């Protein structure tokens, strides 16, 4: 993993012809030419990105990658996945190893500016929490003074954790391990009293990795805002638009009541919003540099946001909560497609 970071750093050293701005092809052109989207995803987080028993990647982050491929190629399967740890992800995107990073990554101002990334939006509103073994009989995060806490490095989690304990005048000992497998081993073997990450991660880990899920409780405190979303590199507005609107199309489709089952029949609808969305009128696809049926392809092959949520997160026991549409009291809101 270290050699990967080094390699990626070296590729920044050498990438691109020196001082030849005009010759640099846009990401959209490069992606079209190679015939697939290279998508950076989590190495394995149930519900977000994880290969199933057949080796097919599944999850709401994976669905964003597939939506982009559907929009660009009309074929959601034209994606290649690069599993990335928390530490590898930014270098991989900066250096051009991946075209887009869709890996439960928190949108922060540092990442949006000095790391050279552009976040396109939010596909999951999350917050950080704590998981402890039930037998500890801990009821609140305020009782964690002196605890040993397992955490992954290079995350906002690591920073929020320090902030929270500082703010509450408590002490803790971090055990910082990069690989998810290893850090979970450390927690489940009892090396740590607490495991902390985004609540979505805690829920997924408890269901899919805990020897006995009922032995672990997630404490009620949510100590941070973690808007998770896909990101692209600075400096390529066109590709930024394509990725951004691929995500918005999934959210807008849910709002319009379009889903993978009814999209063919609804495409002929008299509703002007749906006509524009489906490319029957106007040329929104062309404005993006894509086929006019880009949004139809997304909904037909990947589904709308709600379908993706229900297929990937609901079976794990996730509640829509903040991730409901704005019309239903949640935060999911796409700007108008017109």
């Amino acid at each position, binding site marked *: 993993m*270290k050699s990967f*970071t*080094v390699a*990626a*750093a070296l590729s*920044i*050293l*050498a*990438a*691109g012809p*020196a*001082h030849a*701005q005009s010759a640099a092809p846009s990401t959209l052109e490069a992606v079209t030419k190679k015939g697939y989207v290279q998508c950076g995803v989590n190495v394995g987080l149930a519900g977000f990105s994880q290969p199933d028993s057949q080796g097919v990647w599944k999850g709401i982050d994976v669905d964003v990658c597939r939506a982009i491929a559907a929009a660009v190629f009309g074929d959601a399967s034209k994606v290649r996945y690069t599993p990335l740890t*928390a*530490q590898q992800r*930014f*270098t991989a995107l*900066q250096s051009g190893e991946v075209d887009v990073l869709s890996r439960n990554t928190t949108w922060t101002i*540092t*990442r949006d*500016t*000095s*790391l*050279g990334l552009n976040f396109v939006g939010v596909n999951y509103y999350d917050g950080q929490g704590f998981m402890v073994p039930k037998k500890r009989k801990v009821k609140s995060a305020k009782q*964690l*003074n*002196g*605890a*040993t806490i397992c955490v992954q*490095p*290079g995350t906002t989690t*690591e*920073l929020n*954790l*320090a*902030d929270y*304990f*500082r703010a509450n005048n408590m002490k*803790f*000992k*971090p*055990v*910082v*391990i*990069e*690989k998810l497998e*290893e*850090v979970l*081993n*450390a927690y489940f*073997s*009892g*090396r740590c*009293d607490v495991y902390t990450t985004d609540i979505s991660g805690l829920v997924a880990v408890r269901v899919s990795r805990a020897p006995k899920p009922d032995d672990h409780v997630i404490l009620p405190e949510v100590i941070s805002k973690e808007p998770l979303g896909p990101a692209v*590199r*600075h*400096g390529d507005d066109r590709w930024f638009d394509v990725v951004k609107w691929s995500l918005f199309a999934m959210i807008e489709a849910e709002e319009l009541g379009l889903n993978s089952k009814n999209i063919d029949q609804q495409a002929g609808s008299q509703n002007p919003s749906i006509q524009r969305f489906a490319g029957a009128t106007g040329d929104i696809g062309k404005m993006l540099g894509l086929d006019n049926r880009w949004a139809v392809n997304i909904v037909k092959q990947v589904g709308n946001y709600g379908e993706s949520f229900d297929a990937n997160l609901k079976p794990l026991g996730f509640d829509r909560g903040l991730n409901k549409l704005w019309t239903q009291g949640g935060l999911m809101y796409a700007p108008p497609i017109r």
Partner: protein
Amino acid sequence: MKRGWLFQAGLLAAAGLVLWFFISNTTHNLETRKIASGFGFLWREAGFEIGETGAIAYSAADSYLRALVVGLWNTFRIAAIGVVFATLLGTLIGLARLSPNWLLVKLAAAYVEAIRNVPLLVQLFFWYAIISENLPGPAEALNPLPGVYLSNRGIFFPLPGSTPELSGFNFIGGASLSPEFAALLVGLVTYTAAFIGEIVRAGVLSVGRGQVDAAYSIGLARRAALRFVVLPQALRLIVPPLTSQYLNLAKNSSLAVAIGYPDLVSIANTTLNQTGQAIEGIAIIMGVYLTISLSISALMNWYNRRVALKGTLR
């Protein structure tokens, strides 16, 4: 002579050009991607905690620079202690392979072959799993000696005026070694000792039988013969490859990152990830290891010159 100079000047110019290309290209690429560069981040607040800070006071409110110094301290600590124990264990293993006791010879040989032929990273995971999964939690800690507690939080032992006591989640007071430090130390020491053992054995065997016989014939006892005749000659051969093993141990300590010991690489990785300044972070890591390795090298060369036969070093 003149052509030689011309060639060397050309080579230097070419090397300079390549270096310039990389530097200007990097700066350009960083600029076009609007990625921050420079070392200004070192003075910003780090914002993350470190599990073991050793002799250096550190909190999340301190700077990245201070966090890196803590990492450097942790690297030094493991390397220095590791070198001492690896030398002791390695010498014992080497001498054991030369012992007249058949069982001891075979055991030492088995140790060397087993340890040398399994990747160090795997061994580290092994030791870490042994320690963190087999030891009980702090509430059920083993108490082999009064004041000494053994649990998966580490080994706690008393200091004058301060005894460890269980309080809430963990022991408070006394001094402690973390499981990560212990696993890394045991892994590095056992691994490097296998190589050092072979070096010691080769060094001792290289001293001719005639030398030993001659020592006995002038009336030296076994111990005196070893001390005044065999070891001084063996050391000449042992020191240069031993230097390599010390360098290996210092560099291998960077595998700490895999089992969560906060060494320099681990802290620098976190830093470069929080700041996004990968090139600067990697440059710091490379610079520090280069400095450590060159220092060990210089020290061992000085020592080598002292034990070498006069007139054999050019």
